[in-house]
């Protein structure tokens, strides 16, 4: 081949090249080890805890006897995340629509974008602190911890994720579609509702699912908004249990049976989040945009 015409690469350069490429590949492998270890330990420690009664009984709260199951935590997580989504998704998508369709490059739109960015960077525990100050301390709707206050904290967390992902997808909707609708005499709202949103829907759903997955795994904002209890409740003005808070509490107990419950709850939580994440990726891949 043509390499005949050139001086061959010196052995030293060849060695450096091989060494560097080997290092990069080794570091990549290293990055995957923690995931393997976590999955291994979750299965090893968690599967033992799981049985039918694990999902159908509440934590007993007794330190020495039967520790019970995690029913209240699953119900609490589902209820609180559902309520958070009901508020955060319409608001988040609404702000994204405003940014892309109406605000565009105005000064106000840039300011809103900046504040959404700020929200993305705020640590989740600070959101919890905020809700604690404004709702728990101030005694809004009863001066105590409540499920709906936990939902507010989770909703604040979800909002920027939903908005950012929806904004990205809405920007991908081809302008020709909008122009075609306007040319046919459709008013703006009809263009947005009937043309832009349906086109962007799969991408928006992906963002929503990722936001839900993120919220379901959050512990810090729930500790002092919804607190930790044993009994199952769907009453949002009561204290509400959640999987992450239950795990956190049980780790601190230094009692083997409670720790086993924590591993079982962790396995359950990771499975729930994994399903959401993979579903989101699947929808993203099916989407025509991007």
């Amino acid at each position, binding site marked *: 081949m043509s390499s005949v015409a050139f001086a061959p690469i010196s052995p030293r350069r060849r060695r*450096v090249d091989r060494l560097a490429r080997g290092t990069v590949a080794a570091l990549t492998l290293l990055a995957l080890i923690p995931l393997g270890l976590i999955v291994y330990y979750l299965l090893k*420690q968690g599967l033992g805890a799981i049985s039918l009664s694990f999902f159908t009984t509440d934590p007993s709260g007794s330190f020495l006897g039967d520790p019970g199951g995690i029913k209240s935590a699953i119900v609490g997580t589902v209820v609180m995340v559902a309520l958070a989504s009901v508020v955060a998704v319409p608001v988040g998508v609404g702000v994204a629509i405003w940014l892309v369709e109406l605000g565009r490059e105005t000064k106000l739109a840039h300011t809103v974008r900046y504040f959404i960015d700020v929200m993305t960077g705020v640590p989740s525990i600070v959101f919890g602190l905020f809700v604690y100050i404004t709702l728990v301390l101030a005694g809004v709707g009863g001066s105590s911890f409540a499920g709906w206050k936990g939902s507010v904290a989770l909703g604040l967390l979800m909002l920027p994720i939903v908005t950012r992902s929806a904004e990205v997808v809405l920007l991908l909707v081809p302008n020709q579609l909008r122009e075609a609708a306007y040319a046919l005499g459709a008013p703006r709202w009809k263009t947005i509702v009937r043309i832009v949103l349906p086109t962007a829907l799969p991408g928006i759903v992906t963002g929503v699912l990722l936001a839900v997955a993120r919220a379901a795994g959050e*512990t*810090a904002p729930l500790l002092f908004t919804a607190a930790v209890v044993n009994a199952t409740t769907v009453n949002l003005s009561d204290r509400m249990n959640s999987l*992450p808070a239950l795990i*956190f509490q049980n780790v601190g107990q230094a009692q083997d049976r409670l720790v086993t419950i924590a591993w079982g709850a962790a396995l359950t939580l*990771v499975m729930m989040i994994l399903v959401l994440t993979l579903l989101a990726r699947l929808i993203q891949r099916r989407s025509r945009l991007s």
Partner: protein
Amino acid sequence: MEAGTITPAGERPNALRRSPAARLPDRLLRWGLTALSLGVIALIAYFFIRLLVESEPIFKHESVTDFLFSADWVPSKALYGAVPLIAGTLISSAIALVIGIPVAVATALYITELAPRRVRGPITLLVELLAAVPSVVYGLWGFFFLIPKLKPAEQWFADTFSFIPFVGGTVTGPNYFVAGLILAIMILPIASAISREVISTVPSEHKEAALALGATRWEMIRMAVLPYARGGIAGGAMLGLGRAIGETIAVTLVIGNAPVTGHSIFQQGYTLAAVIANEFGEAASDPTHRAALIAAGLVLFVLTLAVNGVARAFVIRAERGQRVARTPAAGMAG
């Protein structure tokens, strides 16, 4: 003529105009969505003000400089010095960056430049799945697996390399290093994703030019890819730093929660986020203690704000640089 049959708009002004009633939904939509967006701004502003107001009792109790620069955090004696907390936050995050960023950049390089095409998708997915593991599960794993398994290795390292500053001495189970390691794993997905994005924007002309001049693959990466992607990688690292600073539950479980500044990276510490999560129960009945925790939250908020601001500046500059650099290449291609 044909044109004559078209009615000039001036003669029938309402023919192409919607009646005010028909335009109402558009107006409602516009004002509703604008109000929503303004609401977000108002919310964040209100948020900041409330944190300021609610942390005020601590600054009546002691001065701002006392809070920020004194080293004793002893709530039982009403001493609130945030130095151990701020130091712990910065030390654990720094360790996370030192470990996490090279690995993240390596994964990004491997996926974009070196890996066979078939394994790129699966590796990307696996790295992203690290982000799906909740913080508390990392904490659980760190507490029951990482701490006991790492301790002998840490002790050996501390004894062997005791001449390095901040390494020698006794090793405690939970410590800065374990917290930093967990944080490194947690920031890996975002740092890797951003590095990957930036690296994939390196124009193939640059890479091909390097290869055509006889560079090996690694020389091509070192001379064409890394210099081009440097700004974006730095931005990704800063975003990771922002995450690490604010991470709470995983760190709370593995850093030891001792309000001291340890003498080595293998000693216990505390972070701003961990102190809030950990002492909230006991602080509920003590307004000064509660205000001190809220002030810790305020410091945390300002810290993440600053770090994210710098990160954004980096990323924006990197993007702008790319646009400038891409223009002549695109011109040549045309």
